[in-house]
């Protein structure tokens, strides 16, 4: 039985079965084979969930601004889900979690509440080498099995799925402003600056997370934008990627050979 109080009882039972040797995984057959080829064995499908009330923040009609309370809420909710998934992986004695997906679900029964879910497949090195990250926790990564194999061959090791978020309110345009530029195709520098700042903040926060892990870089960075249920003028900018560190050892990735496919 698990001794992690944060996880539900049924999770403990499921994890105990996994510890007995059975494994579950959402890896495809090709991914499974490549994870094995990289020297890792899947231990089990792990997940974490958090239902979070995201609350309300007043916004000024004509002013572009960061909605800090919503930013913090989106951040904390994902962190809780990720931490619970990491706890499940730790319970299994995993070195890391691959193929992590982060989803947000809304339900009819909970206005302003959202479920944040993190899930992936816990893996462990077969040769006993520890791949725990700088914080002593299993690494997390949104890399597929194929990507995981490739990155390991380049001498880089995943450290953690890092993210940064920024919820931003885009100002409405007043009648005066709209009339001032009516019929013209011109840049609106205030809007450019506001949106630029919002995305850069999200990316900076993501890089801050990778620095905390002592990572040398982040691969596969994605920038996602969603308005969730806040209306079109409030947008969440989310930056996500896998922090990696260069490990000692030679690059074992074979030199690519040019292939000209005869398919279209």
């Amino acid at each position, binding site marked *: 039985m698990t001794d992690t109080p944060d996880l539900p009882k049924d999770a403990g039972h499921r994890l105990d079965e996994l510890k007995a040797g059975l494994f579950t995984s959402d890896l495809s057959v090709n991914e499974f084979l490549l994870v094995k080829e990289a020297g890792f064995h899947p231990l089990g499908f792990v997940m974490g969930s958090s239902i979070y009330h995201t609350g309300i923040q007043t916004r000024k009609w004509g002013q572009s601004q960061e909605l800090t309370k919503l930013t913090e809420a989106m951040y904390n909710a994902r962190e809780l889900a990720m931490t619970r998934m990491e706890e499940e992986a730790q319970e299994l004695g995993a070195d890391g979690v691959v193929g992590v997906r982060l989803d947000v679900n809304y339900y009819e029964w909970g206005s302003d509440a959202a479920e944040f879910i993190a899930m992936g497949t816990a893996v462990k090195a077969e040769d006993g080498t520890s791949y725990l990250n700088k914080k002593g926790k299993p690494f997390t990564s949104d890399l597929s099995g194929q990507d995981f194999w490739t990155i390991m061959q380049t001498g880089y090791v995943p450290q953690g799925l890092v993210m940064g978020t920024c919820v931003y309110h885009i100002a409405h345009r007043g009648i005066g402003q709209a009339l001032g530029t009516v019929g*013209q195709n011109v*840049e609106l520098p205030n*809007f450019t600056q506001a949106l*630029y700042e919002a995305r*850069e903040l999200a990316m900076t926060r993501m890089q801050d997370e990778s620095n905390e892990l002592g990572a040398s*870089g982040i691969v*596969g*960075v994605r920038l996602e934008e969603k308005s969730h249920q806040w209306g079109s003028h409030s947008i969440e900018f989310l930056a996500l990627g896998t922090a990696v560190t260069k490990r000692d050892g030679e690059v074992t990735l074979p030199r690519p050979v040019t292939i000209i496919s005869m398919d279209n």
Partner: protein
Amino acid sequence: MSDLIGGDRSAGGGPAGDLPEAADRRLTSGAFSSGLTVPDFAACLHMGLRPVGLVQGFCVMQWGWTGQGSIMRGTSPYSTAGRSGSYSEVFRCPHGYVSAEHRSFGQNFDQPWVEQAWAQGFGSAYGRLMEEAGEAGAHGVIGVVDTNRHLADLNVTEFHILGTAVVVEGWDPPPGTPIWTTSLAGQRLGKLLEAGLMPVSVVAAMSSVRVWASCMTEYLMSGQAVTWGQATGTDEVVQISKAHMEVRRLARDQVRGMLGGDSLHGARLDVFERGGEDQVIEAVLRGTRVRRFKDVDPIPVPKPTVSLA
């Protein structure tokens, strides 16, 4: 932020120093970030390219489709564009005078004010991407992708360009060497280099043609089989066909003007139509300007393989 207007897009942006504060901090933090997929990242390392950061640029433009001059230009059958390479063509009615409502003439004409606005939005965003690349100490930017979209419920369009800034290992270019850019990455970039070509810069242009339908175009587009004794069941809609040909030509001409004698590689032409009989047709042509730096290596002898994927 610089205001690099389209055209000189390989020059590397304008005066630096007005990027958002967060951008400065992010680009000087030490760790690299990369928007490349893992296979592209691995291919990049094999090519001797080291990623130094994900770089981006934005520009939000007010977007009015009827810019200054469009009304005169649209209603007068005799208006001409007044610049070289432009397009204006009148389509006359074959029926003679019928009624005041009858479309006795139609016209196609290009809309340079829309093209210039697009070039300004793209050019400004690109200039800012180049500023970020310069700040990151990059030699080049690979995997450049641009998008533009309508923002919220405002009459504005946002241009967004991003790519991964890279340093060429062991290369020490003289000061002032322009930063090269390309939309290619991974195997496509590798094949380009194997073919003896090097990327110079991303090039892109948009052209826009407005169609005011003549009576014949109106009948053909609305599917009327016989009008005024003339069969119009299956026939070419000449006015629309010409608009499509010209909008593509205009985009190609603009891009050709940016190549400076170099070649275009990986060209992608997207065409959009808005409206029915009276419509606006737009074309956006994107690609990478490339230059030969060595003779082409012979390609390997083809070897059939069977994929299990």
